[in-house]
């Protein structure tokens, strides 16, 4: 059942109002107005989102709300419109985006209280919310791509928010470019879909239309399309090989990291795969690729997170790792599980970042965990909320992370990816380890804080702590909507999503609870190791680092991937562009030919000019040459 629902337009309208307000009036009307309008519009959007969600709930399963804004692109026979739609999947996403977004906006009021550029900040933030909502509300791939690139833009702008620092600016650009590489794949993916459908006389990118005409796809075409789109997802959701931008993105203001680089934008790839689940289901090998990339990324990023000392970097790699989980989930066919993890992750990772932000804020900008410690007393609320988040991400029941991660691992196992399941489980242990390492280094033990900073250290103001508390509650109990089937109310979440993303049916018999217990055990082992190394024997990590120096350096240098890209892509590109193309081809070859022609003409002119010696008899001689030529020609004609 599809119902036209005008309020969908309003969901977009309010963030847009926010953007315009902050852009044009923000700086003039002052901080007070910005602080109200900035978060306010998102809260309104949140309320509208709840309304739409309630509407969906009240309608039969599988219903969707639709609202066409206007016809958009038509070219040849191809046609897409600017249309919005909400079904179960996007309803969940809208709530995540507006809900968490609203609280992070609120938090930002406090976090950005001392920044002169607050109006610009909220402009970007509201713009981000707008783009993200377009992304999740889009009723076709192309419009989704508008949001997709829009959030990328906002990410770029916000990473480079403190533009005076050239490194920050560089990181912003790096994010945008990495995303663009993925987006190129995304575009090709869309084109493939259009071509396949168009071949059958269908010229649209509408999700519903694609779904209805799945028959036009062969396995090959579906695989190609899915893989290309997934390339886009690896960019946006920071998976191998395009993840490199995300850790560097942490130089942006922390609320940005929380909202964009943890809770919402980076999960867009997962959302896209889930949204196109029907297409992916046609392409088992593409699914396999998605799952494998997800699992490998999860492990890979987790290992790097172990040795990082920058609190936000740890969280960044953790995010990449968790995103890997989500892809493992959707790649295994457990789409609901993936989205479920998107949600819980949004709670706890958003919270983790906000807490980290609170710490950084409290310490006047310090991000190095080796210069923290013992902050438990100074920032109690931050500590407690962060503890909840850490437990949640470490997948300890009954906190939310446990349920979603469990569902994903079950999916991986159930779809027959046994190897990937093992990677997932190991990663769970690593997650527990590095997260508690972070917690211990920050809040426990002796304070290693610069005394100057410690002097000013303080708990954050309520405007920041309230969002912490709200999110902490969500992180704690948010997973209860997706309990294992047969336990209390069971898996409400998957049932709700089922009409949209289908139900996961295992191909391999799963040993049920045993799987959960194994994963849980490994997580706890990770936590215990963290406790041993950072509370019980704090000297030990240094010893290990010293002993396994090669491995330690490898991890610390993030497997040298940045350097690798630099060596094989960036430098050759510049070298070729400058020396071969610009100087070699353009200046030397082409312009050389052009100018050479000119010079040759002038030179021959200068030479020919010498025939005009001024001497009459030379002239007569030249004349005679002409005479001889003509006479010879006519004699030739006569003789012939």
């Amino acid at each position: 059942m599809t119902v036209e629902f005008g309020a969908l337009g309003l969901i977009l309208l309010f963030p847009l109002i926010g953007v315009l307000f902050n852009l044009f009036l923000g700086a003039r009307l002052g901080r007070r107005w910005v602080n109200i309008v900035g978060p306010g519009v998102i809260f309104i959007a949140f309320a509208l989102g709840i309304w739409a969600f309630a509407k969906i709930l009240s309608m039969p399963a599988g219903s969707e709300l639709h609202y066409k804004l206007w016809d958009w692109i038509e070219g040849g026979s191809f046609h897409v419109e600017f249309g919005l739609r909400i079904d179960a999947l996007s309803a969940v996403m809208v709530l995540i985006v507006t809900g968490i977004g609203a609280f992070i906006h609120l938090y930002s009021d406090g976090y950005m209280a001392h920044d002169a550029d607050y109006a610009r900040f909220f402009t970007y933030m509201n713009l981000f919310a707008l783009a993200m909502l377009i992304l999740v509300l889009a009723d076709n791939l192309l419009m989704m791509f508008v949001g997709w690139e829009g959030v990328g833009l906002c990410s770029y702008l916000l990473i480079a928010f403190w533009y005076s620092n050239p490194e920050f600016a560089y990181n912003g650009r790096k994010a945008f470019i990495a995303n663009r590489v993925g987006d190129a794949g995304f575009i090709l993916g869309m084109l493939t879909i259009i071509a396949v459908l168009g071949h059958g006389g269908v010229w649209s990118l509408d999700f519903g239309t694609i779904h209805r005409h799945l028959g036009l796809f062969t396995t090959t075409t579906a695989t190609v399309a899915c893989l290309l789109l997934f390339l886009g997802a690896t960019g946006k959701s920071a998976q191998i090989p395009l993840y490199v931008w995300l850790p560097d993105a942490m130089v942006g203001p922390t609320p940005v990291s929380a909202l964009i680089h943890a809770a919402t934008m980076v999960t867009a790839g997962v959302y896209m795969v889930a949204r196109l689940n029907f297409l992916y289901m046609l392409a088992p090998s593409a699914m396999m690729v998605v799952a494998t990339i997800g699992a490998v990324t999860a492990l890979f990023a987790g290992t790097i997170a172990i040795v990082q000392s920058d609190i936000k970097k740890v969280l960044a790699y953790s995010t990449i790792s968790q995103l890997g989980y989500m892809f493992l989930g959707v790649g295994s066919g457990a789409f609901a599980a993936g989205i479920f993890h998107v949600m819980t992750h949004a709670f706890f990772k958003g919270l983790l970042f906000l807490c980290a932000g609170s710490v950084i804020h409290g310490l006047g900008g310090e991000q190095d965990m080796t210069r923290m410690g013992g902050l438990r007393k100074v920032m109690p609320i931050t500590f407690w909320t962060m503890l909840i988040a850490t437990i949640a991400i470490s997948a300890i029941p009954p906190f939310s992370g446990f349920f979603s991660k469990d569902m994903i691992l079950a999916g991986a196992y159930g779809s027959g990816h046994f190897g990937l399941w093992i990677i997932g489980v190991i990663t769970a242990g690593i997650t527990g380890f590095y997260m508690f390492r972070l917690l211990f280094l920050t809040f426990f033990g002796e304070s290693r804080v610069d005394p100057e900073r410690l002097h000013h250290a303080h708990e954050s103001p309520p405007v920041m702590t309230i969002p912490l508390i709200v999110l902490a509650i969500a992180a704690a109990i948010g997973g209860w909507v997706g309990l294992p089937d047969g336990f209390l109310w069971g898996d409400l979440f998957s049932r709700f999503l089922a009409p949209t993303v289908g139900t996961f049916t295992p191909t391999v018999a799963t040993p049920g609870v045993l799987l959960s217990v194994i994963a849980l055990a490994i997580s706890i082992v990770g936590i215990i190791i963290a406790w041993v190394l950072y509370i019980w024997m704090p000297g030990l990590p240094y010893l290990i680092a010293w002993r396994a120096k090669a491995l330690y350096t490898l991890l610390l240098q993030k497997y040298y991937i940045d350097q690798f890209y630099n060596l094989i892509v960036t430098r050759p590109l510049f070298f070729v562009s400058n020396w071969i193309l610009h100087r070699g081809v353009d200046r030397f070859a082409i312009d050389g030919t052009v100018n050479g022609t000119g010079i040759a003409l002038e030179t021959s002119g200068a030479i020919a000019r010498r025939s005009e010696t001024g001497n009459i008899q030379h002239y007569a001689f030249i004349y005679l040459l002409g005479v001889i030529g003509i006479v010879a020609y006519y004699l030739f004609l006569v003789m012939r």
Partner: protein
Amino acid sequence: MKPLSLASINFAWLPILPLIIVAVAAMVVLLAGVGVEDEESEGLGWLTLASLGVAFIFALGLVGGTGVAFAGEIAVDGFSAFFQLLILVAAAFVVLMSLDYAGENRLSGAEYYSLILFSTLGMMLMATAGDLIVIFLGLETMSIAVYALAGMRRRDPRSNEAAIKYFLLGAFSTGFLLYGIALIYGATGTVKLAPIHAALSASMAGNPLLLLGLGMLLIGFGFKVAAVPFHTWTPDVYEGAPTPVTAFMATGVKIGAFAGFVRVFMVNLGPISTHWHAALWVLAAITMTAGNLIALVQTNIKRMLAYSAIAHAGYLLVGMTAAAAYAGSAIMYYLIGYAFTNLGAFAVVIAVERRGAAAGDSISDYRGLARRSPALAAAMAIFLLSLTGVPPLAGFVGKFYIFSAALRSGYVGLVVIAVLNSVTSAYYYFSVIVAIYMQEGGLGHPTLSTRPALAAAIGLAVLATILIGIYPEPYVSAASSAFNSALGAGFMHMTAMLH
């Protein structure tokens, strides 16, 4: 041999009335000028102008005529009328731009203006001739007068040198032309054009006298129209001669020469065009190319315009190569536009020159002209653009017409060469524009306000260059009906043959 019968001669005076007027005027001016100071020759100029005007009016009356007069020595047709009119206009422009110049440069007015009239007479005679000998006479009348004109600045060694070079090479060349006439005479038994044409129709291919005669005629005309390699005199003479005379040589002489050339070759030797178009093809190609290449490196504007004139002769030869009715009218149209453009350009050269000296002819003297004298600069820019062949100016339509004709006759290669040459020529024409508009420095302030006649000449030339370009229709029809009338009823088969 027929006995001479006065009745058969057909003394039709009316067709040669313009010639008579010009001839009489030449003598009147010469006589009237006795005792007139060199600085005060303007009156004589006006007299000359008036007589040219009268001749123009009578020449207008010839339009549409057909037939021959004086036993075929004089051709009475649109072709002659067309060229007479054009030559008269060119001469009038030259007089107009000489009015101040002659006084300023102390040229002896009586001789100067009468020589102009005499050479005009020669040109008109060439255009009107129905006989090779009359063409020869016309050519010599024109040339001898112009030799003297080139040396009018008697105390200027450069002017002397121009005159002597022109004279010697001209006389040398006359020998070839005459020899050619003699050979043709030997081959066909006549020097009258119409009977030659008739004789050719009875196949004479391979006649050695005819072919060699053809070659010699080519050489002779080639010299007058400044085709490479018979062009060598052109730059030196153009540079050394007084500028109005240069203008006259670049336009009047060239028009007159082409009038004869076209009439002899395209009209009367048309039936054997297979025997001359290959030679003309080569001449056209090297003329365009050499002219443009050497023009690239010139620093003196008159010399540059001389090479440009050579190049334009090349374009005209492209038209001749095409050898057809449409090509004939293309050439004639081209000459109209070419005449006005070049007259205008030389008028600007006169305006920029320092009075009484040859200085001011360097292209670098044009630097900053746009600031000092915007109108003059704009006029020069328009002339140069027209010479380049930029639409919608006269030069463009002319080139278009010529290229069309050549393509229609199938000379794709030649047109490509011409096109590439046009591009080359853009470089040096535009270099002058660069000097005028984009560089600073140069000579002092040229004034037009004290030389109203010169200003009028430039203004009229600008107007003509633009008008002929954007509204070519009447000129095109004039040219084509003129040429067709020369072809006449008896020659119609030529068009058919060329299709």
